[in-house]
């Protein structure tokens, strides 16, 4: 457990350092995810302890967004003034993007499965 967590932190650290040194617009953890992914492809399997640790963290991913989420209360006044424009555009654009993305990918994957089968 501790070893697995240490590995996650090491990959995050590698991501942070790379982003800083190369001046990339990406956050360190996202680069760390890419590095770990490459390491797993190279290794060919996931160490059992890492699999367990990540499963535990990811099952409770929603918990980790709560502290930042509570920060919404700081902006209450601004949100109250422009609530209609913000609410309508966020809801329509988010749900529109979800439907369109899922629909396009669903279609493309079906077409591909048909081609592969033929």
């Amino acid at each position, binding site marked *: 457990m501790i070893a697995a967590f240490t590995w*996650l*932190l090491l*990959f*995050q650290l590698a991501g942070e350092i790379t982003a800083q040194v190369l001046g990339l*617009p*990406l*956050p*360190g*953890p*996202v680069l*760390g*995810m890419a590095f770990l*992914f490459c390491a*797993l*492809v190279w290794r060919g399997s*996931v160490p059992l302890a890492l*699999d367990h*640790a*990540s499963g535990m*963290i*990811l099952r409770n*991913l*929603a*918990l*980790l*967004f*709560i*502290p*930042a*989420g*509570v*920060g*919404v*209360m700081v*902006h209450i006044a*601004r949100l109250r003034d422009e609530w209609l*424009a*913000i609410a*309508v*555009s*966020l*809801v*329509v*654009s*988010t*749900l*529109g*993007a*979800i*439907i*369109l*993305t*899922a*629909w*396009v*990918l*669903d279609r*493309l*994957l079906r077409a*591909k499965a048909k081609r592969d089968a033929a």
Partner: protein
Amino acid sequence: MSPRLTEIWVYLAASPLLWLTLTLIAYQAAVAVYQRAGQHPLATPMPLAVAVLAVVLWLSGTPYEHYFEGAKFVHFLLGPATVALAIPLYGEWSRLKRMVGPLMIALIIGSSTAVALAVSLASWLGASHATVMSMVPKSVTTPIAMAIAEKIGGLPTLAAVMVLMTGVIGAVCGPLVLRVFKITDPTAQGFAMGLAAHGIGTARAFQSHPTAGAFSALAMGMNALFTATAVPLLVQVWA
């Protein structure tokens, strides 16, 4: 309150222990409600726990910075959790490498739709320039969104709020609209959730299907990369 109780409250409210503990309790209570409600999307745990905590802070007159002193220990885990997303992603590697083309097309169409709809609707409904610009990167993960907003004339902290609200809208309503439009493939579902609603959508996708979670994580990473490079360029061309 008696003087003794007041004393205890003052001591507890000043220590990170109280707010860290309350964050964990609020989360578990919200998860229990979610289970009791038959895992209905409208009972998604994250916004429920946030609302409860915000009310507690408001009633007790506690400033957010104070709360965050305790909650930051949970917040810190977002970094290693993002790295850990590589593991479910690797589990889908054999399928993933055969569908790079469809994924890229869905990414470009979905990502541009999210930005174009948000910007055009918000300006049409009379939102201020700062609000509109803070809304541009709303579908990407918070640290990138804040950096992009700053670059194009938005407010980084407002952008973080837009990102959070977008995530909650996607996590709560996304599964409902996917059901209405009869999209049942967990790959397509997950990819759409991660693209439009980043980590919060990904957390929600993991609750419904492991494959959906893996592709949601992938879409989140791809959209972060795409938006971070495309948006500043586009804004430069426009201005």
